[in-house]
């Protein structure tokens, strides 16, 4: 057993992983020699701060692609008769040109491909890798007082597996037969039979390979995050002195570690069905009138179980980091300690546990035994309890605070608003009886976009505006930030609000066209309105991207180490911190992370400040 003390451990980890040994007890670690070349510094960097930027910028790239796709299919939904031949230079053969009129229309196959890719890209690449990859990497070592992750090498590999996974999916967009088009959930038989559709051919194979690499990336990252949080906290950083961000990232990583391998199993079985002639998910299939008599005995619903055993924890993998970020940002900008710190921690843990017990609420309509449905309804509705605790605590944190209105805090409030709105519709869908009416309609689309799509994006924006100085030593432009916030906030409700009505009227999701459904003609104007709102919101995000890159080079320079007057450790490291984060010794922690306005004469007290004689740690009373 290599049991070691903390001091030895710090030395061991850094000595081994960074390729040069320090003397015992001397752990100064500023500016590694290995970072001297461009490749070491920016490409294959081992520094968690650089890797976090890599995750963020790659995530932004995918967000633009994913959101751009939604604009294109929204054009089809809002203006099905419009001539979009002008998109031909971008989409080529995916625009069907009517030879008599010369008018262009989106090909139905490509519509499905776009919807599928939009889901895959946003759920996995943007809101999993882009969100948790960015902020876990940036904040875990900095906020717990570690020089880097437990294994910087695995951390780097985690990013490059993500990059590879993205490159493969990107490549599939250029295949002759197109990318996978059977929905982001990849249900068989569309995913398991190459002959099922064009998108089920090479596009699906690449989709599977891409996602297997993605699972590897998530696991490498998650193992590192958990190990780092549990083993590498600085002296004094007890579990209950960790900021809520770290709690959220920890539980997120645990969820990923337990659920992603299960979907990997499902993906392997689909690969076997496609390539080796097994029939795990196939039975009594007819394709183009022809019966596949050889492929019998499987069960397509089995895939749904495997998929949603990941799929449901996945939505918490997406939302928990956003919740952590929002808790931190709200407390700092309301200049008040977070309300009910321990309640927040326990509700994160409760959500984590419950997230594994609710997956079949995605499957009420699969012929599930109604008694089993009842159990899943019960657990699903119980999740409302820890969620409501969190919402209450956020509101109570803002209440009576000396609130600073800036982009970061506005996006945090926006998150709370969206999470409440989207959470309320979850109560409808979580009930198996109401779900009979609502399933597979726009009500579902509206629900999950509001509660985990847009709100997680808001959490991410809050994090970016708040920690931008920590990343780049400059601030983002505040005016553009607030325009970005108000436009996106109003736009998000304008897009998804009306979809609830469509869903309640029974408009099914994933339909290319509603021409043959006269009952839905009444929604033509509403669809146009949604599409216009979506286009405006898309361009507002480009404004954010411009602000982001402009501010990296030209933003207001950060002069103070701790510009927001926060209490956590990431603001005690130099503005231009090298690899290793702190010059000299790692700071030690003496108090909880929310000593904001605790005493009339002290607006904030850093975690590194020792407790005064007779002073009780603020965290002990919360």
């Amino acid at each position: 057993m290599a049991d070691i003390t903390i001091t030895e451990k710090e030395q061991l980890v850094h000595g081994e992983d960074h390729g040069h040994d320090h003397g015992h007890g001397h752990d100064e670690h500023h500016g590694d020699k290995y970072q001297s070349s461009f490749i070491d510094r920016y490409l294959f960097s081992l520094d968690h701060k650089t890797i976090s930027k890599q995750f963020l910028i790659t995530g932004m790239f995918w967000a633009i692609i994913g959101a751009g796709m939604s604009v294109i299919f929204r054009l089809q939904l809002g203006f099905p008769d419009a001539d979009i031949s002008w998109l031909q230079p971008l989409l080529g053969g995916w625009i069907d040109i009517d030879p008599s009129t010369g008018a262009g229309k989106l090909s139905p196959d490509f519509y499905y491909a776009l919807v599928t890719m939009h889901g895959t890209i946003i759920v996995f690449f943007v809101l999993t890798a882009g969100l948790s990859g960015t902020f876990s990497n940036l904040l875990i070592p900095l906020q717990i007082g570690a020089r880097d992750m437990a294994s910087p090498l695995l951390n780097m590999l985690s990013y490059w597996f993500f990059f590879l996974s993205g490159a493969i999916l990107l490549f599939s967009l250029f295949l002759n037969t197109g990318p996978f088009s059977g929905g982001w959930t990849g249900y068989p038989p569309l995913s398991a039979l190459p002959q099922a559709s064009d998108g089920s051919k090479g596009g699906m194979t690449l989709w599977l390979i891409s996602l297997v690499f993605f699972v590897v990336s998530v696991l490498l990252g998650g193992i590192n995050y958990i190990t780092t949080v549990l083993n590498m906290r600085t002296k004094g950083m007890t579990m209950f002195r960790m900021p809520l961000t770290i709690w959220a990232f920890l539980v997120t990583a645990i969820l990923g570690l337990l659920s992603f391998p299960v979907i990997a199993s499902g993906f392997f079985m689909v690969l076997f069905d496609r390539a080796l002639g097994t029939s795990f998910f196939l039975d009594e299939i007819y394709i183009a009138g022809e019966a596949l008599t050889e492929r019998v005995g499987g069960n397509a619903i089995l895939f749904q179980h495997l998929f949603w055993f990941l799929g449901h924890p996945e939505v918490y993998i997406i939302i928990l980091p956003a919740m952590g970020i929002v808790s931190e940002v709200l407390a700092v900008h309301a200049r008040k300690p977070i309300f009910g710190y321990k309640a927040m921690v326990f509700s994160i843990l409760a959500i984590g546990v419950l997230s594994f017990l609710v997956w079949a609420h995605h499957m009420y309509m699969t012929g599930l035994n109604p008694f089993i449905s009842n159990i899943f309804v019960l657990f699903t509705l119980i999740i409302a309890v820890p969620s409501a605790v969190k919402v209450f605590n956020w509101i109570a944190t803002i209440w009576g605070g000396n609130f600073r209105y800036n982009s970061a805090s506005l996006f945090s409030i926006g998150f709370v608003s969206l999470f409440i709105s989207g959470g309320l519709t979850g109560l409808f869908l979580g009930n198996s009886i109401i779900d009979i009416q609502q399933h597979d309609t726009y009500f579902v689309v509206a629900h999950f976009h509001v509660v985990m799509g847009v709100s997680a994006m808001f959490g991410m924006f809050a994090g970016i505006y708040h920690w931008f100085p920590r990343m780049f030593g400059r601030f983002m432009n505040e005016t553009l930030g607030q325009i970005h916030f108000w436009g996106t906030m109003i736009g998000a409700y304008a897009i998804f609000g009306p979809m609830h009505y469509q869903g309640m009227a029974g408009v099914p999701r994933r339909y290319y066209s509603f021409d043959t459904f006269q009952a839905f003609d009444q929604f033509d104007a509403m669809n146009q309105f949604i599409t216009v709102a979506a286009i405006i919101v898309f361009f507002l995000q480009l404004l954010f991207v411009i602000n982001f890159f402009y501010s990296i080079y030209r933003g207001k320079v950060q002069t103070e180490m701790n510009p927001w007057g926060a209490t956590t450790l990431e603001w005690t490291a130099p503005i231009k911190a090298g690899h290793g984060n702190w010059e000299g010794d790692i700071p030690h922690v003496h108090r909880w992370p929310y000593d904001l306005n605790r005493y009339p004469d002290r607006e904030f007290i850093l975690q590194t400040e020792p407790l005064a004689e007779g002073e009780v740690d603020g965290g002990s009373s919360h």
Partner: protein
Amino acid sequence: MSTLTDVKLKRIHPKKFALWMAIVSMIMFFSAFTSAYIVRKSAGNWLSFPLPVEFYISTITILLSSLCFYISKKAYLEANIKLFKILFYSGFGLGLLFVLLQYLGWQSLHRIDISISTNQSSSFFYLITYAHILHVIGGIAALLVTLIGIIRKRFDYPSDKRTLKLELTYTYWHFVDLLWVYLLVFLIIQQ
């Protein structure tokens, strides 16, 4: 002042902890297969076939290889390098033999016309054993790295760094060993 900060905590090495986390994820990976197996089997139309005898022999081989590695680590810590090397080579050889025996096992199943697409039961059988052998090959890759280290005389005297490497490799190997025993027992009971 919190007293906890002044106590030097004895903790597991972060890399070992990370390996255990990886093992947890692999357990989840195989649990998915075996639970899907149980669900599918309960639906009927399930062909029973005897497991090939090679699989029983391979089980003994991999157990013996683990035993070799276990004793070899003790020898290494006692600086008995000669014994360490002999046991390491034996364990490594037995590991390779395991892969060969698995391959022969699949061959003998093919001879009685049990292929991957014969029935759901054989599909699951091959799926699970293939997935396991991939993990074993990962273990053999790790052992190869150690083997190269031994040949280059890196293990000629005990050091903390080498002990850690040895422990990481061996822990993983013991895991794929126990995993195989679990899978074999599972396949026997669930045939």
